[in-house]
C-alpha cells in the first residue's frame, strides 16, 4: 500500500490520502494540504503532495537534497509569489477556513498567521535587537511603547533569548552569535503570534550547542504554535518531531508517527533513506 504511486489527480480526497492520514495520530488538523504541486517552469519540484498537519505537533519533513521539501514548505506561506517562474497549484486550508494557495487570498494576512524561520539567521543589521523583534509588530501599526515592550519581552522569552539580551536591547543585532541570531529570528517570527511556524533547516548553519538550544526551543514551543521543520538531519527529526514526512523526488513517499516511521518504515525507499543507503 503505497502513497507514492499516485498518477491520477482527483479533486476529491484521494483514497490513499485517507490511508496516509490514518497513520498520523489524531488531533485537530491545523493545515490540510491537498495535492500541492509546485512547478518552476517545466520542472516539477513538488508533485501532488497531500499531508494533514496536526495542531500543536511538530512535523518534520525529511528527504535527500532536491526532494522538494523546502519548496513544499515555502508554498505554505506563499513565498513562491516572489519567484516569477514558480507555479503553485493544489490547496492548503488553514483551520478549515483560509485557503492559502488561492491567489485571491491575501499573502500578507497569510504570512502573519504562518511564519517562517530560515536556514541562515538573518537579523536586520541596521536595527537593534529590540527593533528586530518589534519589526513585525510595527508593520501592523503598533506604536505604543508599553505594548511593544511587552510583546518583545514575551517573544524573547519564548525564544529563550531574553536573559541573554535583556540588558542590551538597543545594541545592534549583528553583534550576536550565530545561535543567538537564529533565536532572535525565531523571536521575531513569534512576535506576530503566528499559528503555524515553518522552519527551513533552522540549525544547519549552527554549531552543536546552538543546535541543541534550538531543538529544546522547538519542543517547548509546540504548545503554542504548530511547527513544521525541514531537516536533513535524521537524528534531529527523531529528537524533535511527533510526525515525520519523507519526501523523495517531489513526492510524499510516507508520513507517520515519528517513532513508527523510523522503526517500521513501510516503503522500501523510506527504509533505504533511513538506513543511509542513499542520502
Amino acid at each position, binding site marked *: 500500500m503505497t502513497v507514492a504511486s499516485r498518477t491520477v489527480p482527483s479533486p476529491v480526497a484521494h483514497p490513499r490520502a485517507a490511508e496516509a492520514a490514518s497513520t498520523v495520530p489524531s488531533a485537530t488538523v491545523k493545515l490540510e494540504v491537498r495535492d500541492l504541486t509546485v512547478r518552476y517552469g517545466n520542472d516539477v519540484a513538488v508533485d501532488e503532495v497531500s499531508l494533514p498537519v496536526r495542531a500543536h505537533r511538530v512535523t518534520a519533513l525529511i528527504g535527500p537534497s532536491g526532494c522538494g521539501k523546502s519548496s513544499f514548505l515555502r508554498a505554505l506561506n506563499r513565498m513562491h509569489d516572489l519567484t516569477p517562474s514558480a507555479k503553485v497549484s493544489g490547496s492548503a486550508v488553514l483551520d478549515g477556513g483560509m485557503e492559502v494557495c488561492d491567489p485571491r487570498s*491575501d499573502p*500578507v*494576512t497569510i504570512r502573519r498567521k504562518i511564519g517562517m524561520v530560515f536556514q541562515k539567521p538573518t537579523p536586520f543589521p541596521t536595527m537593534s535587537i529590540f527593533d528586530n523583534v518589534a519589526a513585525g509588530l510595527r*508593520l*501592523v*501599526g*503598533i506604536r505604543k511603547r508599553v505594548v511593544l515592550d511587552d510583546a518583545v519581552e514575551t517573544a524573547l522569552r519564548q525564544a529563550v533569548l531574553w536573559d541573554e539580551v535583556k540588558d542590551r536591547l538597543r545594541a545592534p543585532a549583528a553583534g550576536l552569535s550565530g545561535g543567538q541570531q537564529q533565536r532572535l529570528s525565531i523571536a521575531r517570527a513569534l512576535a506576530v503570534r503566528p499559528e503555524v511556524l515553518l522552519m527551513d533547516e533552522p540549525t544547519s548553519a549552527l554549531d552543536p550547542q546552538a543546535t541543541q538550544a534550538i531543538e529544546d526551543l522547538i519542543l517547548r514551543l509546540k504548545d503554542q504554535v504548530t511547527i513544521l521543520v525541514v531537516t536533513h538531519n535524521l537524528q534531529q527529526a527523531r529528537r524533535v518531531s511527533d510526525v515525520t514526512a519523507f519526501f523523495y523526488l517531489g513526492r510524499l513517499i510516507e508520513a507517520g508517527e515519528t517513532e513508527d516511521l523510523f522503526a517500521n518504515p513501510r516503503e522500501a525507499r523510506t527504509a533505504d533513506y533511513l538506513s543511509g543507503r542513499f542520502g
Partner: protein
Amino acid sequence: MLTLRARRRRDAMVHALLILAVIIVMTPLLAVISYVLVNGLGSLSLDFFTQDLGSPARAQQGRPTGLMHTIIGTLVIDGLALAFVLPFGIGAGVLLAEFPDHPLNPSLRVLTDTLNGMPAILKGLLAYALIVQPMGSFSALSGSVALAFVMLPILARATESALAAVPWSLREATLALGVPRWRVILSTSMPAARVPIVTGVLIAFARAAGEAAPLMLTSFGNNYLTFDLLAPMDTLPQRLYSLAVSPYREWHAMGWGAAVLLLGLVIIVFVGARVATRRRFP
C-alpha cells in the same frame, strides 16, 4: 493599528510617487536630447564641415562659415592627449589589478578616485601654470596636456576594472607553464581584457572631448584653421561655449551644430560600450 487596506493604499501611493519622480527626471532629459538633435541637425551643412569660422561679420553677411577647424582641432588635441596618457593610464591600471598586494595600491586607488572627482578646470589651471606660462602663449600642446590630466584617472580605473574581471585561474594556468609574470600579463591578462580596455579608452576620450573648461585656459580657441601645435587651436566644447554666449544669431545656430556633434560622439561611444560589454557577458 494600521489596517491592511491602509497599508495597501500607501503602497499604491508610493508606487505612483516613484513613477512621478521618474517622469520629473526623464522629461527634461529627453527634452535636452530632442532639442539638440532637432536644432543641431538643422544647422549641419556642407559649409559646416568644410569652412572655418572667421570673424562674426562673415556669418552675419551670409558668407560661407563653418566649424571644420574646430572638428579638426578636437581630433588633434584629443588624439594627442590620448597618445600622451595611454601608457600611464594603462600602467596604473595594470599595477592596481595585477599586483593587488602592492603597498602603493590603496593610496593609488584613493588618489585616482579623488582625481576623477576633481573639477576639470583645476587640471586646466595646472596645465596653464606648467606649460602656457613658461611658453608665453596659449597652445594646442597645453590643451592636450590638460586633457591628458583629465583622461589619466579615468583610464586607470577603467583598465583596472577590465583586468580585474579576468579570472585568476587564467593567469595561474599560464604561470604554471613556467612563463614569467610580466609575460603572463602581456600575453594572457591584457588580451583577455582587450574589449573592456578599448571601451575604457573610448570612454576616457569621450569624457575629455566634452570638457571645455580646461581648454579655455590652455588651447584658448581659434577662429581659423591651424595645425600649429604651439599656437591656439579650436575645439568643439570651447567653441560651443563661445558661440552660445556670443550676441550673433548665426553663431547660435552653429552652436547647436557643435552640440549635436558632441552629443552624437557621446551617444555612439556610450551605446558602443554597452553593446561591446554585453556581448562578452550575455
